[in-house]
């Protein structure tokens, strides 16, 4: 008996083991990406949920863009893709037609159709609060009509080639809902996420929208957290309280790189930091003075030190690489303090001048230290710069003040990544342009905005860029570093623009 069982035992054991392994193999799932339930992302201070008012891509619009729908959208490479719109076409020089999908619905079941689009545009352009703050760059839109439930027609006063791009950051609320709710503090949307709670000074919580018409996001829950204090933000990243944050001071990047849990670094943002020139300020109407200022700044030294080498000197254009008409072979304005002094002497100012230099307290990465370095360099050539620091909340009014300082540190961007739109910020009469602007520039930009075809548009853009260099219309500096700190458990391709969308995140493999 025993011998029998002894002989059979190994076989029995083998069979049982094989069965166990087989069963286990069936039960163990194939290796899958770790499931991430929620992420917490740092964000700029928030002011409103109303897509008619919000303009900050790293702030209010980041939220709006995920709970609402827009006609089109800009993806990470800067290419325009459709969101609500399945296709669009310039059906006449001054007319664009968009064909909409029919499976987009708000949370209460109302369709997001052409009537909704038309109503929203009317609200922004012609309603009682018009023109609403988020209606910039829509000057050329004359009429928006819903031909039928799935077709919207835009009529423009001049050819508006970039209209589809411009509409990439226009979001739609539900008309009937808006009558009973305050869109600034409440939301009912149609986008990939729904709003769970909103606190402009604290957290904004988002949850997956089960009825979304597009591909489902990989992360089902998200919290956006406002932490204005830099030290606290760094601590939150280190402690794991924040999974990601952008816009970190370059000098702090080194500290964070020591953290194993974070992937930290920078890419060039699609934004150029420059100093806007107030042509109406004393001395700024003299081309030689403007050129002297450009020659006086040692961009190499500043980017290597204050920006920790994360960016290099920028070329003589205010466009970032993703913009149409960006010229890759443009060079940086040379550093030549001797030439700067010579130019000033030529202008009869060898005794030196004093100018005001304005900067925002927060909002532009590295600005605080950079302006101090710039002021010192200007001092070397006889330009005494007095720095004024303004809280970001007062920034808008400050920028438009005709009595504003000669130089203002600013980063130029356009939410639509549209070149005519960004160039238009410097034409005569634009909200951020002060003083007389060279006529050639105005003409080129107007022609580019109303161009009938791409070739003309690009040609006019090239003209405008050349004028900005010839006339030293701004102080060219460098690309804003897109500094980031992202938890290694996330796979998030850092964008060159400022969109901070949880929609773009996937769990790391």
């Amino acid at each position: 008996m025993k011998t029998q069982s002894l002989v059979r035992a190994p076989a029995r054991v083998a069979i049982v083991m094989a069965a166990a392994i087989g069963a286990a193999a069936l039960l163990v799932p194939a290796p899958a990406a770790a499931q991430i339930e929620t992420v917490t992302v740092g964000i700029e201070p928030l002011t409103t949920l109303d897509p008619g008012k919000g303009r900050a891509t790293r702030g209010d619009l980041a939220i709006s863009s995920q709970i609402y729908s827009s006609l089109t959208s800009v993806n990470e490479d800067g290419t325009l893709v459709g969101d609500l719109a399945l296709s669009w076409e310039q059906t006449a020089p001054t007319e664009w037609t968009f064909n909409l999908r029919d499976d987009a619905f708000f949370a209460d079941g109302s369709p997001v159709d052409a009537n909704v689009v038309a109503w929203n545009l009317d609200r922004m352009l012609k309603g009682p609060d018009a023109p609403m703050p988020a209606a910039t760059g829509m000057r050329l839109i004359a009429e928006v009509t819903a031909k039928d439930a799935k077709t919207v027609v835009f009529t423009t006063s001049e050819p508006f080639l970039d209209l589809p791009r411009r509409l990439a950051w226009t979001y739609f609320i539900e008309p009937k809902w808006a009558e009973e709710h305050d869109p600034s503090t409440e939301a009912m949307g149609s986008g990939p996420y729904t709003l769970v709670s909103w606190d402009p000074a604290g957290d904004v919580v988002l949850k997956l929208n089960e009825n979304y018409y597009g591909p489902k996001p990989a992360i089902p829950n998200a919290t956006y957290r406002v932490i204005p204090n830099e030290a606290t933000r760094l601590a939150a990243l280190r402690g794991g309280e924040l999974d990601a944050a952008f816009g970190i001071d370059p000098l702090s990047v080194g500290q964070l790189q020591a953290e194993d849990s974070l992937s930290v670094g920078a890419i060039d943002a699609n934004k150029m930091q420059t100093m806007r020139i107030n042509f109406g300020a004393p001395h700024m109407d003299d081309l030689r003075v403007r050129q002297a200022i450009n020659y006086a700044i040692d961009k190499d030294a500043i980017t290597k030190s204050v920006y920790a080498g994360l960016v290099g000197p920028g070329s003589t254009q205010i466009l970032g690489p993703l913009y149409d008409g960006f010229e890759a072979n443009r060079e940086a304005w040379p550093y030549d303090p001797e030439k700067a002094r010579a130019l000033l002497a030529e202008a009869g100012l060898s005794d030196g001048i004093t100018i005001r230099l304005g900067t925002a307290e927060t909002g532009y990465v590295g600005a605080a230290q950079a302006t101090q370095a710039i002021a010192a360099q200007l001092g070397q050539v006889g330009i005494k710069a007095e720095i004024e620091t303004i809280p970001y909340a007062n920034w808008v009014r400050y920028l438009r003040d005709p009595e504003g300082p000669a130089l203002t540190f600013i980063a130029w961007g356009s939410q639509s990544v549209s070149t005519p739109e960004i160039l238009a910020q410097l034409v005569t009469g634009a909200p951020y342009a002060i003083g007389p602007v060279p006529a050639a520039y105005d003409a080129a930009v107007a022609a580019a905005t109303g161009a009938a075809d791409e070739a003309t548009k690009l040609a006019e853009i090239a003209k405008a860029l050349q004028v900005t260099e010839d006339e030293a219309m701004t102080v060219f500096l460098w690309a804003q570093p897109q500094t980031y700190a992202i938890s290694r458990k996330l796979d998030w391709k850092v964008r060159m623009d400022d969109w901070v969308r949880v929609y773009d995140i996937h769990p790391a493999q």
Partner: protein
Amino acid sequence: MNLPKSTMRRRDLGKVGEWAAIAMLSALVIGAVFAPFVAPYDPLAQDLTNIMQPPFASMAHPLGTDFLGRDMLSRIIYGAQPPMVVGAFAVLLALVIGVPLGIMSGWRGGWPDMAIGRLADIQMSIPGLVLALLVLAMLGKHLSLVVLIIALESWPLHYRVVRAYVQSVRGNGYVEAASLAGVGPVGITFRHLLPGVVPLLAVTATANVATAVLAEAALSYLGMGVVPPTADWGSMVAEGQTQLSGAWWISVLPGFALIALLLSVQVIGNAISARQSLGGRDL
């Protein structure tokens, strides 16, 4: 509780401490007054090739450099100027307000005394820093306002001490005699009152210097006093706070300088008050 030996030893230690404090304070004041001669560099001179050097790393910058390559030693020497200037002027102003009012209150009594007393009490309805924030927010960040606010918060201290003293000597024989002999109030003040009051004011003034310097440093730390790039200990501490885990010296060294100043003032103040028979116990 009093073991003679330990007390004697403590007294010696105390003496050494006093001299050390005087030496430290003198060094800081002389450094501040003669800054252009003492400091190796211009406090605003940047050197972008040498940012965030640690202390003792090179002889060129013994205390290191900050995030713009500015020499820390020079900035610390110059950084003493705003707190000392503000402190000195604020205390002076507080004395100018408090002493005459104290003499008048103590001498006259009655209505003026009550009114001034109420005025002094009003001071105490809003804490000093908060009042400073309010005023600077509304009227702008002017250093002269900072001096004024600190003085307005401090004068009751001197006022009360002077008032109490004048009240206590008012009935003194020689004072009455002088008054009867026709010596005017000014004469009485200078000849009889002030000499007695000066030692008391030495104590309150030193305490006031400490609180004034502290107030200026706190306001500059909050961004409401001296603003960058001017070298000032309080604002330097604020500027360096995000670099604490790396370039800690940008915040910590000006902090130590501030502590050194306040500590030496405190020790000297204790020594002065111990010498007066005010019953204050030194440690």
